[in-house]
C-alpha cells in the first residue's frame, strides 16, 4: 500500500493557522484584524486544499483511498491510519466548507477573547476532519473526544445567557455516550488484537458473539450526537446558547458525526445486529421526525425552532441509514450534507438578524421583507430548501430516503408504514417553517425597532451565495454527488446483506 500524505496535510492545515495566530502579537499591534485575517485565510486555504485533492479521489473505487498509515502503539495494536472513501468524502468537503463559512461569519460578531476564539474554531476543524478521516478505532475515539473541547469552550465563553449550563450539558451528554463507546471499542480491540478498522471488519468473527451489545455501545454514543429521540434534550440548549458560528458548525458538521458513525462502524462491524435493530432505529427516527416537527411548531424563538427542526431532519437521515439499501444510505449521506447546508444557512441568517436586534423572538419581528428584501429572499430560498421543495437540495435527499424506506427489506413486513409516517414530516415542515417565515417577514413592518434594520452587507451576501450555490446545484444536478459515494455504498450494502443474510 502506498502512503499518501495529503490527508494528514489536510488535517494539519488548521493547526498551522493556530500556530501562526499564537505568534501573531509579536509582529503587529492591530492583532484583532490580523487574527481574523489569518483564521479566515487558513479556513479558506483548507477548503481550497480539500477541493484540490479531489482529482486524486477515484469515484469508481469502493475501498479506502489516499491512505496514510504508521505504527503508533504496537503493544495495543493501535495504529495511525487515515483514509477516505465514499462515506466520508462529502463529509470532508462539508467540514471544510462549513468551517470556512463559520469562521467567515464571525468577523463582526465576536468581540471578546478573539484570539482564543479563532484558535478553538481551527482546532475544532482539525478535530472534525480527524473524526471523518480516522480509520483506526482508537484514533477515531481521540478525535471524537477532542472535538468536544473546543465546542465546549465556544459555547461556554462566547455563548448566550445560559451558556455555562448549556456547555456543560453538551459536554456531559456526549461524554456519557462516549464512555459506552469506549468500553465497546476496548472490548473489540482487545478481542481482535487490533484497532485498525479494515482489519476489524475483515476479522469480525472474533467479536461477533458480543455484537448485539457492542452495537448498542456504539449506537448510543452516536444516537446522542445525532441526536435521536429521546437523547435530544441537550440540543435545544446547546443551539440556543451557542454563538452563531458554533450553531453553524454544530448543526452543519457535529451532528453528522453521529450519523456518519453509524455507517462507518455499526453497519460494517455489526451487520446482523444492525439488521436486527433496524426497525427500532427506524421507529425512533420517525418519532424524531414527527415529534421534532411538532415541538418546533410551538417555539417562539427562531433559533430554538430551527434547533428542533434539526431533530426532525436528522430523523430522515436515520431512516435512510436503517433502510439498509443503496438508495437509503446514499440519500442519508446526501441529506446529511443538505441539512448542513440549509440548517447551517438558517443559523447564519438568524445570526445576521440577531446581531442587529439582539432578540430572536418571532413576535418581535414581522414585515422584515420591507426592510431587508435581499435578506428576505435568501431566507425564503433556504427555508424552502429546508422544507424539501423539489428543485432544491432538501428534496433530493428526503425523497431518496422516503423511496428507499418503502423498498427496505430490513423494516419488516410493511415498510411503507414507516414511509407514510415519515412523509407526514413533509406536511409538518411546511407548517412550522412557514409559520416562522410568515412571522418574521410578512405582515406590516410596524415595530419601530425593525424599520432601521440594514439589509445584508457584501460579506454576508457572499456567504449566502456560496450556500445557495450548493443548495441549487444539489437540487437540480445531484448525479455527481451520488456518484461520489455509489461504489462504496454498494460495497457496504453488499457486505451487510451478505453477512446478515448468510
Amino acid at each position: 500500500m502506498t502512503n499518501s500524505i495529503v490527508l494528514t496535510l489536510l488535517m494539519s492545515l488548521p493547526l498551522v493557522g493556530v500556530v501562526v495566530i499564537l505568534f501573531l502579537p509579536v509582529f503587529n499591534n492591530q492583532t484583532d484584524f490580523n487574527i481574523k485575517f489569518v483564521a479566515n485565510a487558513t479556513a479558506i486555504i483548507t477548503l481550497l486544499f480539500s477541493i484540490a485533492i479531489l482529482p486524486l479521489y477515484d469515484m469508481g473505487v469502493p475501498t479506502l483511498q489516499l491512505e496514510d498509515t504508521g505504527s503508533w502503539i504496537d503493544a495495543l495494536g493501535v495504529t495511525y491510519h487515515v483514509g477516505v472513501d465514499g462515506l466520508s468524502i462529502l463529509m470532508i468537503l462539508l467540514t471544510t466548507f462549513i468551517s470556512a463559512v463559520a469562521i467567515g461569519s464571525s468577523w463582526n460578531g465576536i468581540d471578546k477573547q478573539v484570539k482564543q476564539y479563532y484558535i478553538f474554531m481551527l482546532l475544532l476543524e482539525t478535530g472534525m476532519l480527524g473524526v471523518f478521516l480516522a480509520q483506526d478505532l482508537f484514533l477515531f475515539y481521540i478525535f471524537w473526544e477532542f472535538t468536544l473541547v473546543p465546542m465546549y469552550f465556544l459555547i461556554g465563553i462566547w455563548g448566550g445567557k445560559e451558556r455555562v449550563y448549556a456547555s456543560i450539558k453538551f459536554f456531559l451528554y456526549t461524554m456519557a455516550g462516549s464512555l459506552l463507546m469506549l468500553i465497546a471499542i476496548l472490548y473489540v480491540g482487545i478481542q481482535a488484537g487490533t484497532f485498525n478498522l479494515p482489519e476489524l471488519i475483515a476479522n469480525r468473527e472474533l467479536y461477533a458473539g458480543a455484537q448485539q451489545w457492542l452495537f448498542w455501545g456504539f449506537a448510543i454514543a452516536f444516537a446522542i450526537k445525532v441526536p435521536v429521540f429521546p437523547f435530544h434534550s441537550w440540543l435545544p440548549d446547546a443551539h440556543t446558547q451557542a454563538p452563531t458560528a458554533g450553531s453553524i458548525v454544530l448543526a452543519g458538521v457535529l451532528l453528522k458525526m453521529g450519523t456518519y458513525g453509524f455507517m462507518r462502524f455499526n453497519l460494517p462491524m455489526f451487520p446482523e445486529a444492525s439488521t436486527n435493530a433496524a426497525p427500532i432505529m427506524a421507529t425512533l427516527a420517525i418519532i424524531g421526525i414527527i415529534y421534532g416537527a411538532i415541538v418546533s411548531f410551538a417555539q417562539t424563538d427562531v433559533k430554538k425552532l430551527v434547533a428542533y427542526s434539526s431533530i426532525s431532519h436528522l430523523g430522515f437521515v436515520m431512516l435512510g441509514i436503517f433502510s439498509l439499501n443503496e438508495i437509503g444510505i446514499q440519500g442519508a449521506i446526501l441529506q446529511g450534507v443538505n441539512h448542513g447546508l440549509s440548517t447551517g444557512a438558517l443559523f447564519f441568517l438568524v445570526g445576521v438578524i440577531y446581531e442587529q436586534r439582539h432578540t430572536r423572538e418571532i413576535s418581535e419581528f414581522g414585515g422584515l421583507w420591507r426592510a431587508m428584501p435581499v435578506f428576505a429572499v435568501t431566507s425564503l430560498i433556504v427555508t424552502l430548501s429546508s422544507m424539501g421543495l423539489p428543485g432544491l437540495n432538501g428534496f433530493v435527499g428526503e425523497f431518496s430516503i422516503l423511496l428507499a424506506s418503502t423498498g427496505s427489506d430490513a423494516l419488516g413486513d410493511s415498510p411503507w408504514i414507516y414511509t407514510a409516517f415519515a412523509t407526514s414530516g413533509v406536511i409538518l415542515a411546511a407548517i412550522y417553517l412557514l409559520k416562522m417565515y410568515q412571522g418574521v417577514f410578512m405582515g406590516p413592518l410596524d415595530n419601530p425597532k425593525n424599520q432601521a434594520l440594514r439589509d445584508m452587507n457584501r460579506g454576508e451576501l457572499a456567504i449566502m451565495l456560496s450556500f445557495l450555490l450548493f443548495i441549487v446545484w444539489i437540487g437540480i444536478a445531484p448525479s455527481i454527488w451520488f456518484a461520489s459515494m455509489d461504489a462504496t455504498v454498494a460495497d457496504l450494502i453488499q457486505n451487510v446483506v451478505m453477512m446478515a443474510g448468510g
Partner: protein
Amino acid sequence: MNAFGLAPLLLILPIIGVLFNGIVGRYFLDADRSTGEKWSGWFGTAMAVGTFIVSVLIFFSLGANDHHAEIVHLFNWFNIPSGNFTIPWAMQLDTLSSVMTLVVTGVGSLIHIYAIGYMHGDRDFHRFFTYLNLFLFFMLILVTGSSYLMLFVGWEGVGLCSFLLIGFWFDKPKGEGILNGDAARKAFVANRVGDFAMILGMILTFWAFGSMEYEVVFESALDLYTTTETVFIAGIEFTIPQVLTGITVLFLIGATGKSAQIPLFMWLPDAMAGPTPVSALIHAATMVTSGIYLIVRSNVLFEIVRDSGHQLFGIVSAPDLVAIAGAVTAVYAGLVAFTQFDIKKVLAYSTVSQLGFMIAAVGMGAYVAGMFHLVTHAFFKALLFMASGSVIHGMEHGHHHLHEHSHGDDHEEDDFDPQDMRFMGGLREKMPVTFWVYIIGSLALAGIFPFAGFWSKDEILAHSAYGLGVGEATPVFTFVRWMLTIGAFCTAFYMTRQIKMTFFGEGRHEAVKHVPESSPLMTRPLAFLAFLSLMGGALNIPYLTGGGGEEASTPVGMTASVLAAEEDKGLNLAFEHWLEHSIQAFTLEEDFENVVGPNGEHFFTHVPHTPTSLQYDIAISSTLIAVAAILIGWYVVFRVWPRSKEDPDPISQWPVVGFVWTFFQGLPLDTLYMTGIVKNIFNPLARFSDVVDWNFWHNFVHNNLIRDSFVALADFLATVLDPKGVDGIVNGVGQTARNLAEALRRPQTGNTGNYALSLFLGVALLVAFFVFAS
C-alpha cells in the same frame, strides 16, 4: 424541420424573466417609476409571449410529426446506479402537453399584458412580474415533464408561486396583510397535504414498475395487467389492480389538493387575497387544473383499475371515487357560491364547482370532455376574473376619487371594500366594456348555447348519460349526472345574482358614481378572451346528426380508427382527434380486443366512450335548466335587489331556501377544519408536546433524574469514599468530579474557565493514561 429542439426555451425564457425582474427590476423602478414599470412589465410579458410562440411552433411540429410524441432529454437528475434509480430532466412533447402549454402560455400572456395595467402604481411592480414568470416556469415544467417526479417539481413549484402571490400584499394595513399571509400559508399547507399523497403515490409507482417516467410506467402497467402478473414491493405480492388502486387513490388525493376539491378545497376561496390577475391565471385558468391534467395523464392507470373492477376496501373503485369527489364538490361549491358577497369569492367557489365538473368527467373516463372543459373554462373564467378585477379597480378609483374631493371628512368610509358586491350596483353604464364581456363570460359559464361552456359542459353530461352505452349507466354515472345537473342550475343561478348585484339597479355606494372604465391595456385582453369564450366551443363540436339516446348507441364504443376514418368530415371533434394521440385509454379496447388472459378473460371491455354526436336530449334539457335558473333568479328571487347595502340578501328571506343559504354561508366544511382540526387538535398538540419536551425530557429527565443523581454520586465519591485522597491520580479525578458537581449545582455562577479547564484536564488525563500505558 421541427421545433422540438426549441422546447428548453419554454423553461429558459421565464427564468430569464425571473432573473431580470428579480435582480434589476427594483433599480429600474427606483430610477424612474414609469420607465421602470414599462421595462419590468414588458420584459416579463415578452418572456411569456416568447413561450407562447414556442408552444405554437411545437403545436405545428406535432401536427407535422403525425402527432407522435417527442421526448427532449436534458440531463440526468436523480442517478443512483447501484439502486437502479434514475430520473432524467426530460420534456415530453405530445398533443396533451401541447394543449396545456398553449393554454398556460396563451392565457398567461394575456394576463401579463392585463397585469401591466392592473398593477400600475404598485410599489412592488417588479416583484409581481418576477412571480408571474416564476409561475410560468414551474407550470411549464409541470405540463411538459416526462415523469411523475418532474410533474411534482412543477406541482410544488406552482404551489410556492401561489403562496408568494396570495401573500403578495403581505403588509396591507388594518390586519389585512396578516390575513393575506394566513391565506397564503393555508394554501401551501393544504397543498402539502395533497403532496403527501403524491409522494407516496410516486414511491409506490417506482417500486411497482421500476420507474416514474410516464412511458415506462404505462407500458409496464399494461403489460403486467394483460399478462395478469403480480409485483413484489418489499417482498409482498400485489396484483396490478391492487397496486394501481393504491396509486390512483393517492393521486386523487393529490389532485384534490391542487385542484381544490373536497376534502382539500378550502384554500382556494381564501386565495382570492392575491391580486386579481393571479386569481385569473393561477387560481382559475391554469394551476388549479393541474389535478385534472394529472388524472388525464394517468388515464391508462385509471382505466386498468376500472376494467379490473377492483374496489377500494370493496366499496368503490378508484375512478368512481374520482367522479364522486368531483360531482359532490361541484354541488357543494355551487351552493356556497350564491351565499358570498365578495365578487371574487363567488367566482372562486364557481371555479371550485367547475373544477368539480372536470374531475367528475375524467373520473368517468371522459378525458377529452374534461380537457375540453378545462380549456373553455380557462377562457371564460380568466375572462370573468379579469373583468371582476376591472370592476374592483374601478371601485377603488371611484372610492379614491371620493376621498380626494371630500376634504378629509371620510368618517363613515372605513368599512368600504372594493370587492364587496353590496357596495356595487348600476355599474353597467359606468363600465360598458367590462359589463358586456362579463355577460359573455357568464353565459359561457352558465352553459348557454352557443357559448364555449355549452359545448364542453354538454359533452360531460352526455358522457354521464351515455358514456357506457345506452341503458348501461352505473349508479355512479347516474349519480354524477344528477349532481352535475344540480351544479349547472347553481351555476346559472349564482351568476345571475352576481350580475344583478354588480351591474344593475342603483349604486349602493357613493363611489359608484365616480367609477371609470378601465384602460385599454386591461380591456383589450378582456375583449380577446370574450371572443374565445364565444367561439371556444368550435374546438370540439360534435357531429350534429343523431339525437336522443337511441342513436347515441352507434358512436358508443367507437374506436380511434373509426373516428380517424371520419376525420375528413370537417372540423368536428378536432380536439378529440388531436388528443387521442396522447390518451392511450382511447384505444385500449381496440388494442386488446384479441388479447386473452390465462383464465380466458378479455381485457378492456369497459372503457367508456363519450358519444361523438350531439345528444339533443341532454343538450336541450341542460340548456332549459340553465335558462330556468336565470329566469327564476332574474324575475323571482332577485327581482328587486335591495337599495341599501345593509339590507339582507333576498334569497335568505325565503322559507327553506333561506335556511339552506344560511347554512352554507357559514362555510360548514371550513369551520369543521379550522376549529375541528387546527384549533382543537393540532395547536393544542403542539403546545402539549412543547410542554412535555421542556418539562419532562429537558427538566425532569435531564436535570432531575440524570444530573441530580450524578451530582449525588459525585458527592458521595468525593466526600465519603475518598475523603483525603489516596494518591495523585485518584485525587485528581475526585477533584474533577467535585468541580463538576459544583459546576452542575450552580450552573449560572462561578468561573467558566476553571470548570472547563478541569474538564479538559480530565480528558487529557484519560488520553494520556491510554497513550502511556503502553
